[in-house]
């Protein structure tokens, strides 16, 4: 092979290599979904394209400069850059439509810029969007890597549950729900407040409520947050009924152990200090009233 031939081969190899590294990026969400197939995630990088300097800076640092950590975190998954416009003009509307078609971003998106993780069916599954997660490429890459890794685990469990039946189905689904940071499509969220559980236990004794709530928990499957909230209902009931501090402490610890870093884990930790050591109530008024 002559020199020119070698150069051509090397050049092609580099191009293919580069293509592999960036090849997972698609121009539109529809293409990404198609490329991802049923079991793979699609990542949307959303940024405010005409109103937000933080977004533009993040886009520049994370995406346009092809940040290594971000690209590594995205790996071979399909991903799309979504420009989000404020009060868009016709041209901007077209830009958005070119990427997202007629689809609007999911309700789970709480803040922009962000990475949204969708599944092949277009369900919103999780997001990297808090200030702490998005403030540097390193932090975002770390959070995204974890989320995508968890996605793979969860997706397998979901598919396992789809194939299984009876207790095995339930067990697989429970495991899927336990995967942190991701939603399971089709799982109807259980809220003890809107379902009426909190009101219902009021007329029960502590032991009746304990039985009812333990039965409910056994009936699952539930997400960790749902389990915490169901236990919170019991803990609240025990406190209002003047149950023993030991019992309260045990319940708060149970809530905490499910996920100590979650809001309910934090609540339980605070509640132990306030109420499980013999206290009854605080005097500081709550705000945010009606």
């Amino acid at each position, binding site marked *: 092979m002559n020199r020119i031939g070698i150069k051509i081969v090397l050049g092609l190899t580099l191009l293919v290599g580069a293509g592999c590294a960036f090849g997972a990026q698609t121009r539109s969400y529809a293409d990404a979904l198609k490329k991802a197939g049923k079991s793979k995630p699609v990542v949307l990088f959303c940024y405010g394209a005409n109103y937000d300097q933080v977004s533009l800076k993040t886009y520049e640092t994370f995406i346009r400069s092809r940040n290594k950590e971000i690209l590594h975190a995205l790996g071979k998954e399909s991903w799309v850059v979504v420009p989000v416009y404020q009060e868009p003009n016709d041209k901007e509307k077209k830009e958005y439509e070119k990427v997202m078609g007629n689809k609007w971003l999911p309700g789970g998106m709480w803040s922009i810029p962000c990475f949204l993780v969708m599944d092949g069916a277009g369900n919103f599954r999780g997001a990297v969007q808090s200030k702490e997660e998005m403030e540097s490429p390193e932090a975002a890459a770390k959070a995204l890597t974890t989320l995508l890794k968890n996605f793979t685990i969860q997706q397998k469990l979901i598919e396992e549950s789809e194939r299984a039946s009876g207790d095995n189905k339930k067990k697989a689904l429970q495991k899927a729900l336990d995967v942190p940071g991701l939603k399971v499509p089709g799982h109807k969220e259980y809220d003890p407040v809107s379902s009426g559980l909190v009101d219902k236990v009021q007329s029960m004794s502590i032991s009746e409520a304990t039985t009812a709530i333990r039965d409910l928990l056994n009936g699952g499957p539930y997400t960790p947050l749902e389990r915490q909230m169901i236990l919170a209902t019991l803990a609240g009931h025990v406190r209002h009924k003047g149950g023993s501090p030991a019992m309260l402490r045990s319940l708060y610890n149970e809530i905490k152990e499910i996920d100590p870093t979650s809001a309910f884990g934090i609540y339980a930790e605070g509640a132990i200090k306030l109420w499980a050591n013999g206290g009854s109530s605080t005097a500081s008024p709550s705000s945010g*009233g009606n």
Partner: protein
Amino acid sequence: MSSKLIKLIIAIVVAVVLGYVSYPVFNLGGSKQAKTVVQAPTPSVPQVKPQEPQPVKPQPEETTPTEPSEDTTGNDEQKGFEETTVQEEDEATEDGDNSFMFSDGDPDLRGIAEEKDAPSVEGQTDVVPPAPQEQKLRAITTAARSLADALQDAEKETKQPQTPPTPEFTEEAWKDPVKIYKTVADRVLKKIGQKPTAEDMIHFLGDAGNRKDVALISLCRKAGMNDLKELVQHPMGARLLSTLSADPEWLCNTMFSGPTDKLGRGLRYMTAIFSDHPDDLMDPTSRRIATTAATEFAREDWDKEGMLARYDYYNTSHKEGKLNKIFDTLHYWDTRFVTGNREHNTWGSPKCLAWERDNVRLPLERYLNATDQLHYRMKNAFGDSVHGPDYLTPVRAAMNDIHPLMHREIGGVCGACSHYGAYAALAAGIPAMTMGEPKHCAYTVRVNGDWKKGYTIFWQHSMHKTFWGLHDWEFLILAQKLYEDRANTLVSDHIAALADFLAARRLTRSAIEGFDAAVAVQPLNWPTWQAFAGFLKQKAPKDKARWTDLCLRISDTLAENFHDAAATFLSRYVYPQLLPLVPNLKERNKLFAAFFDKCDSYGVHHWDITPLLDAQFAGCRTDAEKLDYMKTALSILMSKPDYSGAVLAWGLEAAARSAGDEQRDNQDPSPLQDEFSKLITSAMSHMRAGKKDQNATWNGLGEAMYAAAENNDVRTFQAIGKLAMQKCKKNFPKYKLKFRPFSGKVISTKGLIHTSHKLGDGDVRNCCLHWGVLQKTGGSIPMPMGGDGSVTVKLETGGLINGVIALFKEPIQDGQRFTLETSEDGQNWSKVASPAQLDTSVMRFDLQNAKPNARYIRLVKEGDDKNSAVEMIGFYVYGKSNKSKA
């Protein structure tokens, strides 16, 4: 040296040492004081020696009331300035926004405090000029609008950064603010002439230097000399005033971009900001943030520390590029909504704002859906009520008391949800605010110049941030439209400021011409209308022609689009003066009609017409006058669907009120009530009451009832129902309804019933039958059979429910699923556990075990059988009302 000369020298020395040679009276700012004239001198160097600006505390002084000296020659130059400082403050110069909320009939007199050295006008007969002819007004408006155009062009040209202007008044010169005021005031008077006309004023304001002088005079008058003297003791205070007074744009934005109440304190706050951040003094955005935060915190009586924190938050966020680009497009007036947001200790604290800024970053429109991030929970999962102390307590410390974070994780109700949405927008620098609704909290975000509502249920909005202390939605829109029309408003504000100054100089005729011109060029200028009415009340309280003119001009201009604002102005400021001067009923009704003619619909927003009707009615002395007024009001308003229900309800109540409590207790209609009923029938049919007009009456009442149901207005709904029964009894069915009741009383009879079924015109005309459904004789209302279709009953007051019975004209087919839901607020609904017991056409819900406490009861049809309805003829809620418990 003669003893006389010695005495004179001593007097001069004493005067100089004590420094009480001061420029007499204008608005002294600061706290409200009794109207006294201080004979003892006030030192020019205040005894308070602030290292940094502090709020002024009233200084106790020995005061001896004395008459202000007057010079009737009208020659200021000859008279000079008296050596007395008058510690007088017009009551209205206190001018906090809230004063308008509670002052009935008192117009705003802000700013119009006369200067005691100004010539007296007493004895002159031509003080108040006649109202300007239309032609003259048109000419003035044209001239003023040309000036506005010129201003707009000039503003475009000065968009480019310019070198800082050289100050006419240096920091050193500002050490004597009285001298500066005198210099500028003399200059203005010299240039504008002795008796300037409106045309002279407009011509005068064509010069940029003159406009700056007017703004500077306004600043001195609004801040007050005491505050200015104190301010300049601080090095940054003098520097601020020197820089501010040299920059026409900044000065103009400070003085003419919204209310300037308590400006003295506002300037002290600004001084505090620039003392901490001297480099920001020359930065245009920092100036905007500082000026708006300082003036808003000052007029709201909020503390300096909170203001400094607010400034730091927005200034730093802006410098770090963390605000939405909208913030860069804001003017001073709309920046006030942002930097002056309420809740500065909680949702608006820097830490809460920073959290929302960093964690709820959204494009503008999406802030209206930000509430979706919170779970509506009256009780949290631990069973603690949001109204109790424990809802958030365990997470407070760990979450650093960051309200949006705590509520997003634990839950909240409408207050938390609305604050979350509004403050997320505010944190990004976008104008937004929360607003109260009956037992509910909603919010609004400004999107592309329009205030869009979020989380709203009712039409009654009480805005949590106001410019003029008036909380109705319409006043927010009025402020938006007023300041949006920047050029005309600027001209109007300058003319009004000049008029205010001329009024203080006792050039009454010129001042009134100025006010006339100011509201002509900008009829939306609410504060100028108020100032104008206040001045007229002082100078021409009995001038019928002038008050008539004011009434008609308001009706012609402001009322064109802003019915609520115009009605508020008329009923608070015009009618109390005008109506006693117009004994002729026809003439009076003609004046009222001038306003009503503008109100074909609600206009900008649904508003409550009752206070206006009350104000007009208050001018009637005899029953004949009252009836005559009612006849006029009804004949006009009953033909306007938006107002027909409200005028009916008002009329019934006004008639009952007039009849006196005794007769009301007997429940026998008084002669006046009888007459009024006839009037209603007459007005409804546009003919004399009679049997043949019953159809028109029935149809009109039906339309009014439909409006009342749509408005969720129980009182009007009931009033119309009773009237319909009285006048059109034959139209109601005479069912002999038989069913097994529940224990307790029927508590739905005095309520309101509403169907979600879409009603055609014919259905609307029969709406009085809806009322019948709640009565024992029965009526008719369509029960929709489509998915989520419902019939809702709002009880007069809430109560404990034992059971509900719904009766249908035809038997309901088996397999149809109905559910009953109850609610305390009409927003959050709970399904009752009991299933419907259906026996052909009688449906029962037994709630005797659950006994829910509810104000709203809703029967919902499940399924997809769309667009059809069955006829419900009775709906009865049994239980014990909270009213009887009370």
